């Protein structure tokens, strides 16, 4: 049988280090599929608006609180990045403190979002019209992702050893942090699509 034959790499297997990358690879896949869930949601948002004269700009979402919420999440991501850096240098106590600060900021985000719902959105309910339904579905779905991210972070926060332990097949800190960054980036897109662009459209509409 004539087949192209190239000698394989000559590496001794027995002396190789333990693999810790599978977890982060799986997390990238999770992020891909979750991102697609939000793409579907944003697609539905625009599709529902496509057969209406006025969409979203009829309410002109007030965007100050949303920007503050974004600032909170991005700051928590920055703190967590600093924590990742500390863990990489084996300063585990500092990493743990950074993680819990991020968790607190995430909880603050949820509280402020609840406040935003009750103050800025009291005229729009999930049951009032399609706009309300899709707005609340997207933002609540994001809040559910924030909660999932918080649970993961808190879990890492109480786990006994989360550095380069010999037997852990993953780097839990890094993996959970990656998910948290993803959740924060989604909020940036929500602010853009659901808050900023409608106001811009309203401005174009009025002038």
């Amino acid at each position, binding site marked *: 049988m004539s087949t192209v034959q*190239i000698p394989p790499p000559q*590496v001794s297997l027995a002396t190789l280090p333990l693999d810790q990358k*599978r977890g982060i690879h799986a997390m990238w896949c999770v992020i*891909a599929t979750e991102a697609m869930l939000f793409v579907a949601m944003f697609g*539905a948002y625009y*599709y529902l608006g496509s057969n*209406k004269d006025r969409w979203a700009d009829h309410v002109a979402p007030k965007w100050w609180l949303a920007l503050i919420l974004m600032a909170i999440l991005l700051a928590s991501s920055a703190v967590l990045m600093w924590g990742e850096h500390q863990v990489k240098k084996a300063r585990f106590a500092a990493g743990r403190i950074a993680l819990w600060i991020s968790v607190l900021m995430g909880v603050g985000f949820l509280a402020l979002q609840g406040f935003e719902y009750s103050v800025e959105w009291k005229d729009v309910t999930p049951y009032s019209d399609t706009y309300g339904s899709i707005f609340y579905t997207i933002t609540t779905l994001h809040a559910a992702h924030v909660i999932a991210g918080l649970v993961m972070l808190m879990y890492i926060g109480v786990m006994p050893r989360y550095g380069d332990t010999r037997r852990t097949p993953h780097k839990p800190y890094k993996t959970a942090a990656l998910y948290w960054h993803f959740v924060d980036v989604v909020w940036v897109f929500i602010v853009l699509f659901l808050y900023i662009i409608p106001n811009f459209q309203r401005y174009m509409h009025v002038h």
Partner: protein
Amino acid sequence: MATRGTTISRLTTLWESPHTLYSWFATVDHKTLGKRYLATSMLFLLVGGVEALLMRLQLFHSDLSILKPEEYDQIFTLHGLTMIIWYAGPILSGFSVYLAPLMIGARDMAFPRLNAFSYWMFLASGIFLYISPFLGQAPHAGWFGYANYTLTKYSPGMGMDYYALSLILFTISTTTGAINLIVTILRLRAPGMAISRMPLFLYSTTTISFVGLFGLPPLTAACIFLELERRWGMHFFGIAEGGTIFLWQQLFWFFGHPWVYIIFLPATGMLSMIVPVFSRRPIIGYPFVATATVLTGLVGFGVWLHHMFTVGMSDMAMSIFSAGSMTVSIFTTIQVFAWLATMWRGRIVATTAMYYAVGSIVLLVIGGLSGVFTGIIPVDWQVHNTYFVVAHLHYVLIGSNVFPVFAGFYYWLPKMTGRMMNERLGKLSFWVMFIGFNAGFFPMHNAGLLGMPRRIYTYPSWTGFDGVNEVITVGAFVLGIGILISIINFFYSLKRGALAGRNPWGADTLEWSTDSPPKVYGSEHIPVVASRHPLWDDFEEEEDPENDRVLDWGRLTPTTTVLDAVPVGIATIPEDSLAPLWLTITLFGMFLAIVYQRMWFALGALILSLVVACFWMWPRTEKEVTE
């Protein structure tokens, strides 16, 4: 230096699960789970088949009333769902889960517990769906469940709620399974198995796993919208409240068409493995077949509107999607010509597996051609919602899923059971299935062109559809008999079949270098690969005089780089665990609570799920063997 005997006993101690009830539920072995996937989805094939035969009885003559209209609707919805979602996808997952680690020389999947979780979730979602017929309230809006018929006004029962939530459960199972296969195939390949030497079945499995990652979320979104509108009074599809029914169609078919490739590509991957082995030569055009596979998955995202040509869209949108549909057929054609050329240039060995493979190529070409018909917009408008489409989709799905799966069974079952299947019964089964299938489905083209609409429970006699429907019903029963013969053959051969040995077909890929059935740890020395056809070259894959590649001090398998498969690390493989099963049970309870809107129960089940997940992930020391 350890001797061979102690190596084997250490590996066996490490990898073997004891035969206890605990192990039965807790096992994470990919071979056990793969076989469970196969058995469960075959069970769904039989259930869906019985539903199909019930429908054919009802349609045997005009104006029959064996089934009431509502019963017929429920049965044809269950038939579609069972076959497309719970049989066609998972059976291929079964082959992938069983074969992928063996083909790449790994000792298990990258995430064995996640693998167990995927299986249990698949089973749970199937059970979840099949609760509804026992309540007499099965979903009745077709497997595609078009809004706004699915809203509470027209579908007041619980059927559509079970539909939406069982589909969400199923997407969880498929997504986790896809992630597992992606990481396994890209990271755990044997040293030297560069991406250019990967078996073609793994190309299709990797492609469809990525397609699943991006194709399933729109279905989840659509089902979330449906449930929110049905039970929580929100507005997405109801036109009176400003919604649009096409939102469902867009989201559903954005999932639906990629799903067609998910249940089609691995089957073509199997053909790309089986046809060359029984043509006694390497496949012709390996790079073309591999590229065509990946491009099918990619372009498969750009064709979904062809399911909606009649809803009224701009000519531009329809033209683009019509062109996309034509483009996809080019990639399938490349594969078909590669198989034909391989057979042409090879010396064919006419085994049952080869019969099924060639038969499926014939059916696939017929189904593909009627697909080109329906991809052309004017023809589509003419035959839309007629039996022509039913004929097309059954030719494609049975031709490119059921027949390759049977080819795969006749080819790989000797590896799984250690015994050869009976060739004479197998060939008989093939001919009965092939004749029955064509008798049952080819006349449907005719019925469709005559104007017989699909999704109807009966038809009046003056339409003149009686004759053709009688033939169809008889054909369907013959097809069923053919499938039964193969099932009988399986149980007969399990007891009486000749012993298979390691490589009964003289095949080229790594799974044939293990024992039949394979040892719990796969191969004793991790194989090293030097060519595209490891067992056909003169390089000895398991040559390892210094016992460097036995990795017998823990549950271990090497990890390699994605493209060149240079070894870079050793992956630890976790032990048996009940956590995947518990997590499945708590999620099942949560979804059941959601169907009945018991949200406090749902919250409780969610918290329980989180507790189980935390227990699952808690770092613990793994089993090690000390001397």
